[in-house]
């Protein structure tokens, strides 16, 4: 049985004394120590009535303890639901209730706050000997949730309806990627991984589980350090990191602000990037700086995990201007292109929406039967996930990313449904209508611009209070860069917001 669950135990058997996790400024722990900690958490969860198939959330800053929580929840047989410590409490509460979490592990402070939110529907317990509390919930519901067998974790992604969607990932879905990545990148116990992405972001699956599968060490980089390129550049040197996995945004920030020349980065062996397009000039620059490392472009939405990859040539040809392809399917994934009502096998010159089937594809979205209908294309007796990404097959048979089909954009590697921002704005008592657009300027970062009209047409809302309102409902990465007050929102013939007209007003 291929599961994430047993990985830590295996590693602790093979490499008990090797360093498993390192917390900069906070010490480190061996594999034996990590297993002991995760087992204590698992025993505690089981003693509180958590059983296999249950969902257990956690809201903790990234640390040895939060990594142990992931493994402890899995060890208990439950699935983990990572919450963003920086997200508004209302969003996290929605997630806990949406997946009918059986329990939440949190710092005592956060635990108290959530206990207040769920008054009467939860009890709070102290985790013996650990700076954690457990909230045990009682979410009454008439109909049971459909939970797939072998559920490992649920990651919530931005939803166009205004509420995040729970992506159900089983042990099998995750394991095939974790196992392949270990082989593809030649991972051994001598490697030292970076863990930059937060645990609610799917890049973290590689950092945590591929490392543990091979007994490598993981440097846990918390959300503040992850935004500080000077610290990131120093950490590679301090801990002799060999495997670095980040979004192109992070790498670009390191080039610009990281004072890279001051540090020894010759320990880097593998550099992986994913989550967004990497323009050639900064990629060239980072490759020149980290000349000893192999670079790979990984591609895959949360729903399929990484499903294609492309090795970047050691020397980027002088003539290369377009970003590198997303490449070919990983061995566990199959790709086809959807064009209208038909799907096609990949062949040079073809263009269409990428659809993906195979072991890594999610079981579905939690409790969203209609959304699941739309998300999958049924063919040849199996479900193909519709990525919404338009790709083209080049002469070498590799896929090149062209654009998004819907209104989802990416910023700093995070997926953002513009409709979710609109929904948040629509909850403001003074806003009559909102239209949100994104702009990709030449050589600039993507900008999100929110247009809105008010019930009192002349009464623009003060910027600070508008920003505050948005941040009460959405994580900071979804906040618009600009707000523009309009007397009236432009409309199409069918009375829908005219986004073309809004784009021209930016």
């Amino acid at each position, binding site marked *: 049985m291929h599961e994430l669950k047993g990985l830590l135990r295996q590693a602790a058997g093979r490499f008990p004394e090797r360093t498993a996790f390192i917390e900069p*400024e906070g010490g480190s722990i061996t594999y034996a120590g990590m297993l002991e900690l995760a087992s204590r958490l698992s025993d505690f969860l089981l003693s509180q009535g958590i059983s296999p198939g249950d969902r257990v959330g956690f809201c903790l800053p990234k640390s040895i303890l939060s990594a142990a929580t992931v493994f402890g929840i899995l060890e208990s047989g439950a699935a983990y639901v990572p919450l963003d410590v920086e997200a508004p409490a209302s969003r996290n509460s929605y997630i806990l209730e949406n997946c009918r979490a059986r329990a939440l592990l949190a710092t005592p402070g956060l635990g108290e706050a959530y206990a207040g939110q769920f008054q009467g529907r939860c009890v709070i317990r102290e985790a013996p000997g650990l700076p954690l509390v457990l909230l045990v919930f009682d979410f009454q519901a008439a109909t049971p949730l459909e939970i797939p067998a072998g559920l490992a974790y649920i990651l919530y992604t931005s939803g166009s309806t205004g509420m995040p969607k729970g992506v159900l990932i089983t042990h099998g879905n995750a394991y095939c990627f974790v196992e392949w990545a270990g082989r593809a990148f030649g991972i051994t116990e001598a490697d030292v991984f970076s863990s930059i992405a937060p645990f609610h972001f799917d890049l973290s699956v590689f950092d945590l589980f591929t490392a543990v599968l091979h007994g490598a060490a993981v440097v846990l980089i918390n959300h*503040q350090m992850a*935004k*500080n*390129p*000077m*610290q990131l*550049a*120093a950490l590679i040197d301090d801990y002799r990191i060999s495997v670095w996995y980040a979004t192109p945004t992070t790498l670009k*920030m390191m080039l*610009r*602000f990281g004072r890279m020349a001051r540090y020894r980065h010759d320990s880097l062996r593998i550099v992986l990037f994913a989550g967004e397009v990497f323009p050639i000039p900064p990629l060239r620059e980072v490759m020149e700086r980290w000349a000893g490392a192999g670079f790979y472009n990984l591609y895959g939405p949360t729903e399929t995990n990484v499903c294609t990859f492309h090795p970047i040539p050691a020397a980027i040809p002088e003539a290369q201007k377009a970003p590198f392809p997303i490449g070919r399917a990983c061995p566990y994934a199959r790709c086809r292109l959807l064009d209208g009502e038909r799907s096609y096998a990949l062949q040079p010159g073809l263009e269409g929406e990428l659809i993906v089937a195979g072991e890594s594809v999610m079981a579905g979205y939690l409790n969203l039967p209609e959304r699941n209908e739309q998300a999958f294309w049924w063919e040849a007796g199996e479900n193909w996930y519709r990525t919404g990404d338009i790709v083209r097959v080049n002469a070498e048979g590799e896929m090149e990313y062209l654009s998004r089909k819907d209104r989802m954009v990416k910023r700093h590697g995070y997926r953002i449904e513009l409709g979710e921002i609109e929904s948040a704005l629509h909850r403001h008592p003074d806003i009559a209508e909102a239209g949100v657009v994104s702009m990709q300027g030449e050589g600039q970062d993507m900008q999100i611009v929110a247009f809105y009209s008010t019930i009192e047409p002349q009464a623009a809302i003060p*910027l*600070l209070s508008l*920003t505050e309102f948005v*941040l009460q409902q959405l994580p*900071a990465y979804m*906040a618009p860069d600009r707000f523009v007050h309009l007397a009236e929102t432009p409309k199409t013939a069918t009375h829908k917001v005219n986004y073309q007209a809004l784009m021209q007003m930016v």
Partner: protein
Amino acid sequence: MDTIKGKVRDFLVGELNLPISQEELKDDTPLLSSRLIDSISALLLVEFLEKQYGIEFKPHEVSHDNLDSLDLIAAFVEDKQGGHA
């Protein structure tokens, strides 16, 4: 102290285009924790301070503790300058 705050205020409102007026930006207005300043703007501010005052931030000093308000920024800069003297 006043001149540091004045110069930083000019920089934040004038150069970084913070969506807030000079008058609204008080000495204790939270900058990072309120998300008035994003992480890139914070780094641009660090560059400005280093250049303007001939100081250097250590990687871990680029933090809320030293940058979250004009008061904190001025105190940090003065401390650094004092340390050099």
